[in-house]
């Protein structure tokens, strides 16, 4: 017997549960009827109505509202949030930063990035098309982390409803519009350089 009790205690452990002081559920038909009457004609209903009225008043005439009026208004997104990708541009020239190295394509674990590149007339590698299949993308952020040029980053666009999945997945959809270049912010989320990057760099010597 003793052994069994010990075993019992071991299983139960030593948590100290606090029981809530809940009233008993009505058991007889009369008890149930009495509860309905009490709740309907007691002051509980009016307490509730008063709270609502008070808050409406303070929202309209006092301290203002607490909610965000989406979609007219949106919450600010944290820099490390991983939503639809942005392709950034070089601030000086406005050219896109992507050099077509294909590392994002290689590292992508859901294999959803593809790009077409070609040799352009300026003897440079031109990215003629770039696409991410957002039906497959798991927003892991590896592409942004591997990108050596900080060209592909995760933006804040999280509204992915559209008639076609292919929408907003091409290069021009993700590329920062040239007229919004001044609003382009350096990305400090996934894969961005560390704040003390300059201190860690050893400069390559030059002969001139």
């Amino acid at each position, binding site marked *: 017997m003793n052994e069994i009790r010990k075993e019992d205690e071991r299983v139960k452990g030593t948590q100290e549960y606090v029981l809530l002081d809940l009233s008993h559920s009505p058991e007889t038909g009369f008890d149930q009827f009495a509860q309905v009457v009490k709740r309907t004609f007691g002051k509980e209903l009016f307490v509730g109505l008063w709270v609502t009225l008070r808050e409406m008043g303070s929202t309209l005439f006092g301290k203002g509202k607490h909610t965000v009026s989406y979609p007219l208004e949106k919450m600010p997104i944290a820099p490390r949030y991983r939503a639809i990708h942005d392709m950034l541009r070089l601030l000086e020239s406005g050219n896109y930063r992507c050099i077509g190295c*294909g590392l994002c394509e290689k590292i992508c674990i859901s294999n959803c990035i*593809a790009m077409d*590149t070609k*040799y352009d007339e300026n003897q440079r590698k031109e990215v003629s098309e770039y*696409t991410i299949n957002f039906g497959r993308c798991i927003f892991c952020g590896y592409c942004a982390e591997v990108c*050596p040029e900080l060209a592909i980053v995760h933006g804040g666009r999280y509204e992915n409803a559209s008639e076609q999945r292919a929408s907003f997945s091409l290069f021009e959809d993700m590329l920062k519009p040239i007229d919004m270049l001044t609003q382009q912010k350096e990305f400090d989320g996934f894969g961005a350089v560390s704040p003390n990057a300059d201190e860690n760099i050893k400069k390559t*010597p030059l002969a001139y």
Partner: protein
Amino acid sequence: MSENMITMTIDGVACQAKEGEYILNVARANAIFIPAICYLTRCSPTLACRICLVEADGKRVYACNAKAKDGMEVLTSNQEILEERKAIMQVYDVNHPLQCGVCDQSGSCELQNYTLELSVDTQPYVIADTTREAKNWSSVLHYDPGLCIVCERCVTVCKDMIGDAAITTGARGGVELDKEYKESMPKDAYSMWNKLQKSVITPSNDTDSTNCSDCGECIAVCPVGALVSRDFVYTTNSWELTKVPATCAHCSSGCQIYYETKPTSIENRDQKIYRVTNEWNYLSLCGAGRFGYDFENRVVAKNEVAFRVAIDAIKSAQAIRFTSVITNEEALMLQTLKEKLGVKLFNTEAKAFQNFMSSYTTHSGNMLFGGNIKEMMQTSDFIISIGSSLRNDNPNVRYLFNNIQKLNKGAGLYFHPVGDSLITSMGKNITQIEHKVGTEEAILYWILDQFADKEKLPSEINEYITSFHEVSKKTITEKVITDVTETVVDAETGESKEIVKKVTTNVEKEIEVVANRLLDILDAPADFDATLEKYLGKKENFSLVLGEDLYFHSQVKNLAHLVALIEEFTPFSVAIIPPRTNSLGVALLCELDDDMNDDKITTVGYNTIGDFVLSSLGNGDLDMPAMNQQEGTLTNMHKRVVPTNAAVSYHGYELNDIMNELGFGQDLTVDWTSLLPTGRGFKSVDFDSLPNGYTNSGEENRGYRLENKTTKSTSSIPTKIVTSDISGEILYRCNPQRQFNEFTDKAHQIFEEFALYVSKEKAEMLGDKATLEINNKEFTLPVVVDDRMSGDIIKLPDFKHSHEIYTHFGDSRFKSTTIRKA
């Protein structure tokens, strides 16, 4: 093995090696890693990179050019060597662009690999950079000197293997190294840098473009992204490509290639071949193999109507006409059709080859020739080529011819009616004999005369060849040196001394000179005997390669007989080059009939003309898969049955579907592989068990080797020389370089046109366009200068079957014609 085997230790591992093998190759064969950038197996050591530095018996040597000795102890690295290597890599990284991401070689770059291997993370050396512009050297070659590390692998392969020697190192125009480095840097790194800083790769003809055969082997060997094909530049990263091991379908070399595929584009996810690569340490491709890859027949669905018509056409056909660009399996299917339906099989080039081979077998008792091109490349030091325009017919044999000159210190004789300046440029010890058309018998008799063991040779043959000897007396002046003893009295002491003086006198002497009239028949140069004597000094291993001219010859049977005799009585090992891709396979598998081109016979053509045409080119009545869309095996000139694979999708009907419909098919096309007849040297093995690669030591591990079947030979005496007279303008049926058949023609990077190829002098006479007449049919074709040709003979290609060139030429590769300016 005939060669001496020795034992040496590398890093404590005992290794067996051939004596005289380079340490680097021994290490590679034994899976021991020694870094090396500039060395190419099968080529001479360049000693540009110096990174293969090792310690052998306590001395610092370069593994790529130090030979293995018995009992040698090699250490692949120590502290000092590692410092040298690291400094070398640090130098290579100076001024090398850091945007690896855009480079085509990124991911398969040896500079990247060794930089990481030797953990280079800082750059202690600096020098001002030089502006170097990217250039296009030819229709296929793109050179970016900014990426070039001047390892000279491209230069070496072009000279030692390909034979064009179209590129060389030129002046870079860079600044001089800081003198201080000489003291502060490791020695080898400094001397490597000193050389690197002075050079860059340029075309060797002092122009901006290379005059070469556009084989692209320089692209293959480039360790960095400096040399890339123009079509491939920046189109894809190397790691995105899927390598499909296959066999090149263009000529009878049957080289191993990798089709590298990737989806065509973002919109079109069908696999597309982006490039062809090869195991460049063990085999070299030609331009057709490397650039002629997009000949696939895109078929999206089965055309049932055409299929029904095809079945009826085959049932009612009296003959099937086909080319040698088919797999062994397909050849076996056609042979089955012949056995079951009684159709005749027509294949002009394979039939000619079969005739030659059957006569050879009758007289030698061997089903297959004895020589092996790959062994010849390693060991032979004397080569004779007869009946083949090497540059056009078979690039691999041309590489063999060149490699023997460059690496084996060999000599060579090139017998051909059409002169080729490329051949003579391959080495000093080469004589080209532009013999008259149709005198190949005289060459073979001359070889018997010169090299055969006369005591064993049947006396009738001996008598016949001796009858060509002409003994004449000739007076020559000879210098004779005699010792004359004089007594001289010394003026001071009065003593007399005997002094021996050498006096040269000219003596006239009459000697017997044996002139060989066979050489007169061949128009050999006057001093040929003396030249040959020089060539033959210290030569031990003789090779003879024979080409298509001998199979398309009125004396084909006799020629084959003579070849059998040469193989029996002379030290030559003989290789017979099949005329087209799988001619050897077709000749072994099919019982071919003589094609009379009779219009009354209803024919089905497979990739050639016929009343109903099955075509892999997409221009026939029923589509068939092209060689890069099907699995199967090919029989190549190395007497190997090698597998090829599908790289591009195909959704139409195959020959096996037709066979199934007729009731004698197999489940899959590759099920025929194990049915290939063992009686003809094939093995009963499954397609999927056939390997297709090379081992570390360069051994060919592809498919299997055909077994030679021996029969009893019939001994008879070959007939005497028959010279045919061919006069007037002479046409030679010969395709331009890189163009072998309609498949190469379909490839977008190969554009050598269907034209008359002539020497420069001849082109001046003919102008831009000429009209010629063969068998009352007129052809008006453009005239293209082939600046390596000499002589009056005009080359007329046969790669377009619609022109029916084979038919017009009949049983010869030469044809007289009349030609006029158009």
